[in-house]
Each structure stands twice: as structure tokens, then as C-alpha cells.
């Protein structure tokens, strides 16, 4: 991009895609905003009228509202914790030279290719089911009473399933970062008398900081909207115990046919996502500029 000429040309060439992206983003957002101020129910679609902030008030006073926000944060936080810690641990193991390294790596990555509803169904019926799940069999083997995961620990179960799906992603990113660590630095630390633990704390972890940041930011984007796993397992219950904001919006829109209320919920979700993004960037964003 050296001359004025190429700059202008570049802008011209980029304009269509920028425009498309802008429209793609602005139109749905504007429509959602518009609907959120309308009294618009699919059971009575002819009767649409302006209601001001009623939809927001209605959504806000929903007894499930605060719980759903809390649940959203628990899912994001819990999955991030498990995937980052577990991802670092698995990446450290995979970085060692072992027999059958290629196959092991493919096996570790594979959960990422299983689509969320399928993964959730497998967990629901084959692993966590109190009657014929693997965990129930293990419990019975030790003479314990099988746990009915989705009834007793619904939110925890969701977190485990989602974490299982995202662990390969975190592992993959962290493994590549780990492999870019200079071998001579490790040797220098070894000569300097740092044991494995110290090498991890003072050398490996700072080296991974940027990769961890990327993992956290990308995963947060997707984890704020976890939905399929909830739908096929607990359906948000028992009560509202495993309902997050995305699922609450779905409930309002497609079970309550309340487009206006759901739109208000959507806008609230956007605001919440921006608040999370703000704090996240303050917390870990500085790792990105180096």
C-alpha cells in the first residue's frame, strides 16, 4: 500500500465486502431493536402496536431472568476454566514424543468435529443416563447409587458436555503455541537450575499467554450462546436451573410466540455480551499487543 493510487484502489476493491458485512450486521440488529419496542405476538399477528419499554420490563421481571444471566456466566466461566486448564495439561502431554503421536492427536481433536446436538445426545443417553449410562455402570460397580445427572446437577452436566466439545479447540491452539517455544530457552532454564514446575511457571505459561487469550476470547463468543446442548438434554430445567439467556430467548420466542419480548431479550443479550467483552478485554486484552 505504498502510493495514493493503490490505497484508493484497495478501498474500492474492499468496499463491496465491507458494505455486505455492514448490511448483514445492521439489518438484523435494527429489526430486533424495532421489534423489541413492539407488541408483537405470533398468536395474534394482526394486532401489532408500539409499546415502549414494556417488553423490556416484562423480560426483566420474568422470574427466570436473573437466573438465566447467572447461568450464562456460570456456563462461560466453567467451560473456560475446564478447557484452559485441561487444554494446557493435554497440550503438555501431547508435546512429549510418544508412540503413535499422530493417531493420538487425531483422537484428541475429534470431539470438535461432532456436532453439538449429537454430542449432547450421546452424553445424555450413553454416558450420564441414570439407567444405562457409563457413569451409572461405574457407580454400580463400586456399589454406589447412580447419579441422575440432569436432574440433580443440570447446570454442571451442561458445563461438562460443552467443555468436552471445546477442549480439543483449546488443546489445539495451546499445543501449537507450545511447539513454538524455543528449545534453547528450555535448555537455558534447565542450566539455570529451574525444575519442571519452575520452567512451567516462568517460561511456558508466559509464552502461552497470548494463545490462552485467544482461546478465552474466541470461546467466550460461542459460549455466550450455548443452546443446542440445553435443548436436547435438560430443556432448560428442572425449573429454570439450566436455562441461560439464549435458551430463555428461545423459550419466549418459540414457546411463548412473543416476538417482541424475545427481541427485547436479544437486545439485553447483546448488551450483556458487550459488558463481558469489555471486562474480558481489560483483563486479558493486553496479552494480544506485543
Amino acid at each position, binding site marked *: 500500500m505504498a502510493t495514493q493510487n493503490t490505497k484508493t484502489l484497495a478501498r474500492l476493491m474492499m468496499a463491496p465486502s465491507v458494505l455486505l458485512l455492514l448490511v448483514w450486521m445492521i439489518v438484523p440488529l435494527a429489526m430486533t431493536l424495532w421489534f423489541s419496542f413492539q407488541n408483537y405476538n405470533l398468536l395474534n399477528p394482526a394486532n401489532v402496536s408500539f409499546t415502549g419499554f414494556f417488553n423490556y420490563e416484562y423480560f426483566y421481571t420474568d422470574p427466570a431472568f436473573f437466573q438465566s444471566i447467572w447461568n450464562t456466566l456460570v456456563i462461560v466461566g466453567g467451560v473456560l476454566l475446564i478447557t484452559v486448564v485441561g487444554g494446557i495439561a493435554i497440550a503438555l502431554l501431547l508435546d512429549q514424543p510418544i508412540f503413535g503421536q499422530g493417531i493420538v492427536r487425531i483422537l484428541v481433536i475429534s470431539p470438535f468435529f461432532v456436532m453439538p446436538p449429537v454430542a449432547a445426545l450421546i452424553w445424555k443417553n450413553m454416558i450420564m443416563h441414570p439407567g444405562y449410562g457409563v457413569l451409572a455402570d461405574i457407580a454400580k460397580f463400586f456399589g454406589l447409587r447412580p447419579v441422575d445427572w440432569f436432574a440433580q446437577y443440570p447446570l454442571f452436566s451442561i458445563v461438562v458436555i460443552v467443555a468436552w466439545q471445546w477442549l480439543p479447540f483449546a488443546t489445539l491452539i495451546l499445543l501449537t503455541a507450545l511447539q513454538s517455544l524455543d528449545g*534453547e530457552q528450555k535448555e*537455558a532454564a534447565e*542450566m539455570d537450575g529451574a525444575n519442571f514446575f519452575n520452567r512451567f511457571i516462568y517460561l511456558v505459561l508466559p*509464552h502461552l499467554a497470548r494463545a490462552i487469550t485467544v482461546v478465552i476470547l474466541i470461546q467466550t463468543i460461542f459460549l455466550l450462546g450455548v443452546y443446542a446442548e440445553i435443548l436436547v438434554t435438560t430443556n432448560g430445567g428442572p425449573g429454570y436451573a439450566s436455562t441461560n439467556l439464549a435458551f430463555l430467548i428461545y423459550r419466549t420466542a418459540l414457546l411463548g410466540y412473543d416476538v417482541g419480548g424475545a427481541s427485547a431479550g436479544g437486545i439485553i443479550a447483546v448488551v450483556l455480551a458487550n459488558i463481558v467483552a469489555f471486562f474480558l478485554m481489560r483483563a486479558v486484552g493486553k496479552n494480544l499487543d506485543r
Partner: protein
Amino acid sequence: MGSITLRQVSKVFGEAKVIPSIDLEINDGEFVVFVGPSGCGKSTLLRLIAGLEDVSGGQILIDGKDVTHAAPAERGLAMVFQSYALYPHMSVRKNIAFPLKMAKMEQSAIDKKVEAAARVLNLTDYLERRPSQLSGGQRQRVAIGRAIVREPSAFLFDEPLSNLDAALRGTMRLEISDLHHQLKTTMVYVTHDQVEAMTMADKIVVLNRGNIEQVGSPLDLYKSPRNLFVAGFIGSPKMNFIDGAYAQSRSARTAGIRPEHLGLSKDSGTWRGTVKVAEHLGADTFLHLDVDGIGPITARCDGEFGAYHGDTVYMTPDESKLHRFDDKGLAIRG
């Protein structure tokens, strides 16, 4: 104290015998340079001494103590790596302090040692910077600083100057030599550059294919190389090797004469040759000649000699400085 003894040390990587068997004695306070072409096993040998590689056989003794199976940190050695291997997220101060911190030294004592090392290496103004904000020479000094604060019994240098430009390399060469005179600690230095070896070493170890070709002081190696390999490796420009009738007349398979031991003249001499390329360095001129009945010869002459491409030049080898080698490539003495 820092004497290092290698007894029949060998190293095998899978099928490849990188180092068949090496015996070597490094005395306390000596500056020893391992030199050889790439792949000769010099870096592997250094890493064996450091403990970064396990020996396949033999013994390594430091100050008479068997450390063959000791961990790198337990050997009391410090190493400076080719890439400097500084910790990028730590300031210069923290980099230098790292080994002391790992040794669980008190913070006040650490500060004192770091300041002292920084003074010796002219790094005082840079202590709070990150390695990425330093120049190549400064990074090199930080790496050395990290080594000297540990007060090791010996320093190991693995091609430390090969990432620097020519001018800086000359300066750092002097600084490392100077440091050796100050500290009087054993230093083992690996390089492929025979100039570094000649200028810095007390003792040069010439390695080739994992074997020691010759051990000796720089001038020993220059004056009486034990075989063709050492003769060709030490000295720049390289020694001329002459086979055939001329060598036979001196009862040798190969005769060797250094470029600086050829007397040049424009009108008479033993050999007559044509200048192919003349490299004028100012003080010296290197002439690459095609000599009748002998072949290509390199000669070194005074910068004022004034010979150019295509000129005819006569030269007379200094017979007292002639090296003779037998069928096995070993030097014939006497």
C-alpha cells in the same frame, strides 16, 4: 576451580555414531576452543559436557568429580547459547537474576550481584528493558551476564557470535577475551570460525567427524599441523596443497605451503603463474593464481605489490616453511 576431564566419551544418535570416543583434559582457567566444520560433533560435545545430552559411554569429570549422570544444574557450569535464549517476557534484570532466584538466594543478595554483573557488562542503563528492545550485542551481553552471576566453575559458549554482524563480532570477541582475563574462569567455546579459534584460545581442539584431529595452542597448530585436515582448516587463506612431481621430489605424497610463505616477484622465481583473481584488502592482497605444472595456488602478498587479473607473477616457496604429508595424510616431521 574448573577442570574438566573427558574419558572415552561417546555419543550415538540411533544408528549415527556422532562421537566415537574422545579423551580430553581441560585445565582450570584455560580458554579452550572446539573448532571444526559443521556436523563435526563440536556442539554435541559441548552439550554432553553441559549435561543437556546423555553420554552413550565414558565418563565426564569436573574438578575430579564424576558428573556423568548429574543434571545440568548440578554441574556448576553456565552456558551461553547461539540464540542467546533470553526469556522474552522478563526484563534484563529478571533474566540475569533468574538462576539466582532458582537457587533461592535472598533478594538483596540477588540485587547486588545483578548490579555488579551489569556494571561489568555495561548493561546498567538497560536493566529494565525487555530483550526485544536490545540490539544483538546487548542481548549477547545479557546472556553472558546470566552466566556470570552464577559464578560457575566453567563457562560454555555455543557459537555465541554467529548471529552478529562482522564488526560486532570483532568487538564481542575482544570483550569475551577480556572477560576471561578478568574472571580467570575456565571457558569452553565452540565455533566453526577458525579466526575466532585462533584469536581467543589458549588451547584449540580441532574436531572432524567426532574425532579429535589435534589439540594444541593456536601457534602450534599453525606451525606444525598433525595432518592434512588441520593444515587445511587452520590459517586463512587456506594452505596450498600440491600433489604430484613437486611433492615427490620432496619425498612426500602431498606438499603444503601457506599463502604467506610464498615469495613473490614480477621477474624471476621457481614457479610462474597467471593471476586469476586479485583480492585487494588494503594492507594485504590475496592472489589466486594458475601456476604452470602445479595448478591453482593462493598467495598472499603486500598490498603495494600491484598485480591484477591476467598479470604474470613468479613465486618462490620458502622451503623451511614447507609442510610434507604422507599417504595417510599425516605430517612428516623433520
